[in-house]
């Protein structure tokens, strides 16, 4: 029997789940086709064995204190192909941070500080984690800072240094990543970390758990009840000196989240659990709002409303004067940390690659938090790609949140973030080996799809958490926070750039490849062109709305434009086919009514019907004196019927037109 699974991503256009219809049997199929490589399995098994031997210090060799950089070492890693000019600029911008880490990591042994930079040392294109470590004389096993430091900060985009490299390196090392498209942001982040690490900024011991539970949505109802609640309760009982805010679902609105993300209630440790936003390729919001937090304002999947910005909290909602200085955030949401270019699940499930983004990127919300000009957050622990509800449950067990709980414990006890999040790596290693053994030791016909799907999703979940920021940061908390006056003074220094940074900022190319063109060329709306226009390959593409002059252009040109528009309309038809909406308004004086933003203003909406393709129907029935207003209702029903007939007829005719054109110009 197949079971439906819950995941935390919502498609903005449809208001439905980012990938609906995922069932356990489908995931089991994926799991069977996606067994670990021998190398990765060896790493996972080794990691599991080590974890069983000792639990105090996860990733480092015996006898090394993972909270002391002088023992663990610290490295910064650049892509090998990054232009020298960019390398020089980045080193200038990150100088405050690099200087601090050099001082800390090389206190006992200067080789414990490493700058893995340049064509020779940097991560090469397509290089695996094992190939990379081999260059430093290191194979699988715990981190040995004599060879390569335990803490490693990747400075580069997930295109230049892929997420998969980060995941695999993270199995034994404490890995974080930063990547900003502006040089000034690197400096702002470096300054923020240094201010916190040197004790100049302290936040009060305050945590907040922000749990969304949207109507009719099992995923967020589960995370609110079985993740947020037990974590908050545990913290309240164990850490009496901490003030713990639990934001209940009804208060988990966008407006209230701004209080916790830079507003007056901002804690030092923020944990959010919600859906994350997902956009179709071509949607202009894809690059800027992917992973944004869908708040309680969303009426749930049954409403099937396209999701606009008022329902989610994105980087754009972080105020310019927000106070997130020194905060560490944990964002449990699909795409909260970022998105790969290709959908791995889709490839495994359906055998073909599906592009879900123009390139892999880090979500803007964590980046905005980290690089805030008034002092940035120190780190964000978030999920790349989909987050699965199965990570909160294990084989039906509720509240299986020990991994999350232990990570929070570690952070509160002063562990650097990279080490604190090792519990997820432990979980990943353990489930990976279990899943592989399960698949190897049983034949497919005897395998339990539900069990395998659960293991696969839990495994993916654990693997795809990434730390964004320097993995050596810790929560900068104290009984009393830094005085307002002192904090203000330090905040002002965040954007006082050194001349070298200022000079290099304007022409800064952040990545190996310049993607600024791609960003500015993002189309205004999601369109899937049926490419009927390709039938006329010698001509330029149609401009869109303008009709071609009958006198200035030939028949071919007119026909070509017509066909292109027909193709676009068919594409739109596919997108619009999900629902049909009919509204009925009344007004005393029609001359006073305006039509704005798709609605009549100055008129009363008396009836509305929305019919979804899956049969779900939303109906708003008009009332008059407590009874159904049959006069309005009857005519509304007539309009609905006509709309359905009209759509069917027009669509049929358009398809016929497209076919007939194809026939004569083939």
């Amino acid at each position, binding site marked *: 029997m197949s079971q439906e699974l819950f995941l935390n991503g919502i498609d903005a256009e449809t208001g439905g789940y980012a990938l609906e219809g995922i069932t356990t049997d489908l995931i089991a199929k994926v799991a069977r086709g996606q067994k670990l490589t021998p190398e990765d399995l060896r790493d996972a098994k080794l990691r599991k064995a080590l974890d069983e031997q000792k639990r105090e210090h996860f990733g480092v060799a015996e006898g090394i204190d993972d909270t002391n950089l002088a023992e663990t070492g610290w490295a910064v890693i650049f892509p090998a192909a990054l232009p020298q000019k960019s390398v020089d600029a980045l080193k200038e911008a990150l100088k405050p941070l690099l200087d601090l880490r050099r001082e800390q990591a090389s206190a006992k042994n200067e080789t414990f500080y490493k700058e893995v930079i340049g064509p020779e040392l940097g991560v090469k294109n397509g290089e695996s984690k094992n190939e990379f470590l081999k260059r430093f004389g290191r194979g699988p096993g715990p981190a040995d800072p004599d060879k390569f430091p335990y803490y490693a900060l990747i400075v580069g985009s997930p295109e230049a240094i892929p997420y998969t490299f980060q995941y695999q390196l993270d199995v034994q090392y404490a890995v974080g990543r930063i990547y900003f498209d502006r040089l000034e942001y690197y400096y702002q982040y470096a300054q923020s970390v240094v201010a916190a690490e040197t004790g100049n900024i302290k936040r009060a011991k305050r945590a907040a758990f922000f749990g969304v539970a949207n109507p009719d949505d099992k995923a967020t109802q589960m995370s609110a009840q079985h993740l947020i609640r037990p974590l908050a309760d545990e913290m309240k009982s164990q850490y009496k000196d901490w003030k713990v805010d639990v934001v209940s679902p009804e208060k988990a609105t966008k407006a209230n989240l701004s209080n916790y993300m830079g507003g007056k209630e901002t804690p030092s440790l923020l944990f959010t659990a919600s859906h994350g936003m997902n956009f179709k390729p071509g949607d202009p919001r894809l690059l800027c709002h992917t992973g944004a937090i869908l708040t309680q304002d969303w009426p749930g999947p049954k409403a099937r409303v396209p999701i606009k910005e008022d329902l989610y909290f994105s980087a754009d909602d972080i105020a310019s004067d927000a106070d997130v200085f020194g905060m560490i955030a944990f964002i449990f949401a699909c795409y909260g940390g970022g998105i790969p270019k290709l959908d791995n699940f889709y490839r495994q499930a359906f055998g073909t690659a599906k592009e879900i983004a123009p390139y892999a990127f880090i979500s803007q919300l964590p980046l905005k938090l980290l690089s805030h000009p008034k002092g940035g957050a120190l780190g964000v622990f978030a999920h790349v790609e989909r987050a699965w509800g199965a990570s909160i449950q294990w084989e039906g067990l509720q509240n299986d949140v020990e991994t999350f709980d232990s990570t929070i414990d570690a952070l509160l006890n002063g562990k650097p973030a990279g080490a604190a999040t090792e519990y997820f790596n432990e979980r990943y290693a353990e489930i990976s080996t279990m899943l592989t053994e399960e698949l190897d030791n049983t034949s497919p016909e005897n395998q339990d799809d539900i069990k395998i799907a659960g293991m696969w999703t839990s495994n993916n979940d654990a693997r795809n958490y990434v730390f964004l920021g320097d993995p050596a940061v810790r929560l900068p908390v104290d009984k009393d926070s830094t005085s307002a006056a002192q904090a203000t003074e330090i905040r002002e220094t965040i954007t006082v750039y050194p001349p070298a940074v200022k000079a290099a900022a304007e022409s800064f190319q952040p990545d190996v490849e310049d993607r600024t063109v791609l960003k500015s060329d993002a189309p205004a709306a999601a369109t899937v062109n049926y490419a009927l226009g390709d039938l006329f390959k010698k*001509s330029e593409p149609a401009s869109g709305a303008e009709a071609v002059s*009958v006198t200035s*252009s030939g028949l*071919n040109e007119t026909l070509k434009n017509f066909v292109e528009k027909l193709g676009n309309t068919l594409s739109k038809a596919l997108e619009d086919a999900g629902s*049909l909406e*009919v509204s009925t308004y009344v007004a005393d004086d029609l001359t006073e009514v305006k039509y704005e933003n798709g609605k009549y203003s100055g008129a009363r909406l008396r009836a509305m019907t929305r019919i979804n393709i899956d049969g779900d129907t939303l109906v708003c029935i008009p009332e008059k004196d407590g009874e159904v207003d049959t006069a309005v209702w009857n005519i509304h029903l007539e309009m609905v019927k006509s709309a359905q007939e009209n759509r069917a007829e027009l669509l049929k005719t358009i398809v*016929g037109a497209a076919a007939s*054109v194809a026939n004569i110009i083939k």
Partner: protein
Amino acid sequence: MHSMHQEKSSGRFKKIMPVFESTGSSDPLGLWESVLPAEMVHFGIGDETNFLPTDAPIFRVNLPSSGQAAHEVLENSEAYFDEVYAALDGVPDRLGSLVSRMQGRQAAEDSVSFDAVSLEEEPGPESELLQLLDDVSKNEMVSFSVGDESEALREPISQAWLEARVRFQSLLEQINREVLHFAWVETKLDGQMIARSQVDWSGDASTLWSETASEEQKSLHHRALRVAARSRNLKLRLFVTVTGGAAKVTTLMSVGTPVLALPAVYQYVMSILKQVKQLQSIS
């Protein structure tokens, strides 16, 4: 098909109004009378220039105040559309028969051109079509192909073909403008607006009713909407019929592609529809 009635404005009749008016260009189906947007504003109510998006076509049905008379007007238009549909449905068979006849004659006479005798034997629309196709064949544009930019450099096939091409291009533009974009449909009774609908091409509709509209008035707007929708669909059907016909008659051309036959077939279909209109006027 155009019919007129007087519109009451400021308490007195001031201008003869078309029943079916639209901001689109000349309606090939002959139902909607094309009016300039500015003119519609003049006869409209309130600040419609501000209310309606200028790029969306407006279909306005001006009906007489008498419910019975109004329904009669709409019934007539629906009946006319039924006949148009039937005529369009008959085009493929009619063209198929023509092609068979011509091929039979061609085989018998071993002639590659349509001589005067054979053209005269065909009814009006068919004769006109054969003449235009012959114009194409005689032009010997053997290298002409779809997307060939050299088209503009060549001599026109014939003046008649050129005129037909302009009319066909006009149809394509109308479809682009009126069928593939959303439209406004308004119903007025004796000059008073009773309802206005915004209709998306995909079927989504949003209708604004006057609070005081009666059941009968609502029914009239509903019918008017249906007329507008059928009208939009019919233009696409017209296009499909023409392209299908062009593919059929290409065999009658010694040179050229179906694209070159499009204006000729369009002209042919319009001639048939003209006959339908004339028949409807008589009845």
